[in-house]
């Protein structure tokens, strides 16, 4: 038994030795190669983009049909641009995302300043937990909980406005804005602020002249993330909105129930491009000055 294993291993060593010493071999022996993995990976990348590409392609279809290609045309873009409900929803989406992202990034900046670069203080874990709470609850649950509360307030006050949506969006945008801002602060060298203090800057001047300029990339990244998240939201908006408060995503969701025209594709394409631009910017900003 032991004899055979011994001789077996001996044979293997003999065959391994020339391979190991043969550094001049045309193809290096790479242990990171796993059979089939690259093929699956390439297929996955293809599969990630193909559906989006088809969607974009069909948004330029001249025909009404979603199936048959009838030539290139901007017809559906023109139709979307001429559709007052689309324009209305688009403006509302932008106002909503703009205000929610602004409030979220300001309050997230303050929260990040409060929770970073300090020893453990009483309640810090609780602040963390609270700030990340919206991430831990399924969106649909938050949505119906808000529906309950807002329905109650709406009945009590009779007040319906975009403020409900702004409040709801701000709440779930804060953790997204908080993430990059906190990351930025944590990698920031805090002796810089100590140095500024040493050079006669008052606490306010330290913040304005040193802390804030150094935090900017993080804040911008946080704002953009929050903006994208708000712009994309369907579930919470769908449950919180009052009558006539469509955003682009809820408008599209409503359209899907009816006869689908390539107009939805055109709008989707615009959202895709806008989103891709924002995300690329986000990558670029957060890679800056690393």
């Amino acid at each position: 038994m032991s004899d055979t294993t011994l001789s077996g291993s001996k044979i293997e060593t003999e065959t391994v030795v020339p391979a190991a010493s043969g550094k001049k071999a045309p193809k290096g022996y790479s242990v990171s190669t796993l059979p089939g993995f690259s093929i699956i990976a390439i297929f996955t990348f293809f599969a990630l983009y193909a559906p989006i590409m088809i969607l974009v392609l069909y948004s330029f279809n001249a025909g009404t049909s979603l199936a048959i290609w009838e030539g290139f045309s901007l017809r559906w873009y023109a139709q979307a641009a001429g559709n007052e409900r689309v324009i209305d929803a688009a403006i509302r989406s932008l106002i909503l995302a703009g205000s929610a992202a602004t409030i979220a990034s300001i309050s997230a900046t303050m929260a990040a300043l409060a929770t970073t670069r300090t020893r453990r203080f009483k309640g810090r874990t609780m602040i963390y937990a609270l700030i990340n709470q919206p991430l831990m609850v399924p969106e649909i649950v938050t949505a119906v909980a808000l529906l309950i509360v807002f329905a109650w307030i709406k009945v009590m006050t009779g007040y319906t406005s975009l403020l409900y949506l702004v409040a709801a969006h701000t709440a779930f945008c804060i953790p997204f804005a908080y993430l990059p801002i906190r990351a930025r602060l944590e990698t920031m060298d805090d002796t810089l602020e100590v140095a500024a203090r040493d050079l006669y800057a008052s606490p306010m001047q330290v913040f304005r002249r040193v802390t804030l300029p150094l935090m900017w990339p993080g804040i911008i990244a946080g704002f953009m993330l929050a903006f994208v998240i708000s712009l994309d939201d369907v579930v919470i908006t769908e449950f919180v909105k009052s009558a006539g408060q469509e955003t682009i995503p809820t408008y599209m969701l409503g359209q899907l129930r009816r006869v689908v025209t390539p107009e939805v594709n055109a709008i989707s394409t615009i959202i895709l491009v806008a989103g891709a631009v924002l995300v690329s910017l986000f990558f670029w900003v957060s890679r800056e000055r690393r």
Partner: protein
Amino acid sequence: MSDMALNTPPEPGALELEEARQDNRSRWLLALPALLIIGCFATLPLLVMLVYAFLTPGDYGNVVWKFSTDGWVAVLLQRDIFDDTLMWADAHLSIFWRSLRLSLITTVLTLVFGVPTAWFIATRPREKRQFWLFLVTVPFWTNLLVRTIAIQELIRSEGVINLILLKIGIIDEPIQMMFTDFAIGFGMTYVYLPLMVLPVYAAVDKLDFRLVEAAHDLYAGRWTAFRRVILPLIKPGIIAGSILVFIPCLGAYVTPRVLGGGKNLMFGNLIELQFGAGRNWPLGAALSLTLMAIVMVALIYYVRVTSREREDV
């Protein structure tokens, strides 16, 4: 007197204690706006919902302020209209089963495609990884609804897949793929795949390839090395990715609504139904809290896995 007061040294540490107390106060004050917004518009509503789960449904939606546990009972059981006996709510059970099944299938599918993809990215030269990671991340941040619509375009009766299959002549008639469980699973796999790739990538990135070399040196083949050395080492990443995919699948709402149609409900759609046509808000609240509890259990497991991984490093 005042001179005396000035000259007496402060109690040991009094100055620092006061400073620490002030520091604490200003930190709480700084965090306050964020905490208030989240507290009012995310946390508090959950507590209100907890109350609503114990009330009686109103006739036209909303609730009547009368204590009742019917909402909770109705999560699993239903009352016979005629003889008032309780029996299993089959409709709910089948929806729970579908949610669980589709979430598990989706997790497995994202594993099958996600692990090789993560491996592929992590074994590229360092300067090129950013590009591949970017390619995975962009779809993740683009609109979920748009991505779902893209899948719909693909699998509709007149969609690209059917079109191609008809052209080649494999089928004579379009296959009905929309509004099936297949459609939901397919869509969720597509939509949540990046959530699997990123944590697995992080795990592979940390993998010490000298260990793999050691395995090869000790006569392991590629597959044995993968099974016996690589897989155990990247397991935390795989578990993290699986939970990250499983959780949103369980609570999915948009994808099943668009691709599953009105018949193939999942957990999220069942909740919505109670606030719409079902007009049973307490049941909806109870269902929501049930979903939340399941997700919390998964999350706690996730936190334990990832923190253990951090300790290991």
